[in-house]
């Protein structure tokens, strides 16, 4: 069976060059970077090279990069670490309604533990308004956290403007850039970002590796205790091969970003327009054009349910994802689509295709050929659909 992978926002394959490099560090240069001997030194050196590569992609200095076990840990470290470090200064936190669970649930945990939280709404396209952020600020606000680009609908947020605001007000600014890294240029200095979350497995690097950029001078209380790795900001033997893979992936995507983006934008529009042309009662979710990630397609297909769509696509070897309640453990449909004002029933029938470097026009055309048939079949089964 052919296999078409259109779920790159969930995770990407590891680049072969990256994987090959990692192999060396698994089986030959396997030293612990904390060790004094040659095995340790060669690992340490490669680790520091990776730190440089990650820093370069986001306009930071290597000393400002702390490696973690992924985006989730980096988000937690940023938010819990700031709250703990600043609790004497204030108790008010600001975030947006469309953040990833790793951000939202961490804030909700803090809210249950004595902090106060304002969740900024979004407009129908899924975009936060800078004015809303400004209005939410209080004298005791210690942290603003807004993602760079949303993982479900690809909506790019006005980070530069929020960064200016945060700087003007002297409030720590955290940005979850897991989905934008390698797709949109990032410069933490120019964007006035204090804390930035990135993750390796969304940019053709290995899973289980991420990093938090911590601007020089910004204090964070660590989550875990133990060894003095990462200048005491993150304990535990470093995942050296993983980190080295992440570094390499950053270097590669830095070079390829412009071209990748051009190609994927073309495929994205072909797919999005194709679906709208071929299927009735379809709504595109998220912004159109410049404000949308180059690899994101998100549509709601009325009268059918998301998991059924996914399963049907899967039987043809097409991998996608959905904001349907039925695909998640929680049984609530996508909080992002609901925040954008979609009713439950329509959010329920949403489908996300996220493109990657290896996708082809031919694959897109195959999806465009198959999807209408699937929708037709499911609609025939649906009590909500009356021809």
């Amino acid at each position, binding site marked *: 069976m052919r296999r078409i992978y259109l779920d790159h926002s969930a995770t990407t394959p590891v680049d072969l060059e990256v994987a090959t490099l990692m192999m060396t560090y698994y089986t030959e240069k396997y030293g612990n970077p904390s060790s004094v001997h040659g095995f340790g030194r060669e690992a340490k050196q490669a680790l520091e090279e990776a730190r440089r590569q990650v820093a370069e992609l986001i306009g930071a200095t290597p000393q400002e990069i702390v490696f973690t076990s992924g985006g989730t840990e980096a988000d937690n470290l940023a938010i819990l670490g700031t709250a703990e470090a600043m609790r004497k200064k204030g108790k008010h936190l600001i975030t947006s309604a469309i953040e990833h669970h790793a951000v939202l649930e961490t804030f909700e945990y803090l809210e249950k533990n004595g902090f106060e939280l304002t969740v900024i709404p979004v407009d129908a396209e899924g975009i936060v308004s800078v004015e809303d952020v400004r209005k939410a600020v209080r004298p005791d606000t210690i942290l603003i956290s807004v993602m760079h680009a949303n993982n479900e609908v690809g909506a790019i947020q006005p980070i530069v403007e929020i960064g200016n605001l945060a700087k003007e007000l002297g409030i720590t600014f955290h940005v979850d850039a897991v989905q934008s890294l390698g797709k949109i240029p990032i410069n933490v200095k120019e964007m006035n970002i204090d804390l930035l979350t990135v993750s390796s497995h969304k940019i053709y690097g290995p899973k289980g590796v991420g990093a938090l950029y911590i601007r020089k001078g910004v204090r964070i209380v660590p989550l875990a205790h133990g060894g003095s790795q990462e200048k005491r900001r993150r304990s535990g033997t470093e995942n050296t091969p993983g980190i080295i893979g992440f570094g390499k992936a950053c270097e590669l995507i830095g070079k390829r970003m412009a071209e990748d983006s051009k190609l994927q934008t073309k495929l994205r529009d072909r797919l999005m327009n194709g679906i709208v042309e071929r299927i009735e009662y379809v709504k595109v979710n998220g912004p159109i054009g410049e404000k949308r990630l180059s690899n994101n397609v998100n549509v709601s297909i009325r009268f059918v349910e998301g998991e059924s769509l996914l399963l049907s696509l899967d039987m043809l070897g097409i991998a996608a994802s959905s904001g349907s*309640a039925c695909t998640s453990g929680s049984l609530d449909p996508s909080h992002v689509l609901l925040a954008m004002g979609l009713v*439950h029933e329509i959010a329920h029938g949403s489908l996300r295709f996220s493109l990657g470097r290896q996708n082809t026009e031919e694959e897109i055309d195959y999806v465009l050929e198959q999807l209408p048939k699937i929708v037709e079949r499911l609609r025939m089964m649906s009590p909500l659909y009356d021809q």
Partner: protein
Amino acid sequence: MYTEKVMDHFTNPRNVGEIENPDGVGEVGNAKCGDIMRIYLDIEGDIIKDVKFKTFGCGAAVATSSMVTEMVKGKTIDEAMVISNAAVAEALGGLPETKMHCSNLAADALHKAIENYKDNQLKKE
């Protein structure tokens, strides 16, 4: 995650559709996830002669709908009334833990359709 049997019933659902002038109809929405199912019955004497369904829901919802229609066809309404959610799930070779609630849809819609049939009978009398 799903058994082969579930996937079979999802891919080739039995008894999809509507019955014109049915003897009983039952519709339920799953409060947990918002999925919806409708069951149509054609009853002669006490026997379920024909049954059809329409479902807006996940793979498990479709499969349990299909399965329950197969299980009741030809049965008496009393036999049908005692078919439980668990029995439907079991007939499908089991459902993932997080998907057990889906089987409620099918059994509940069936029981509602039978009650609707009984109500209709009372009204006729």
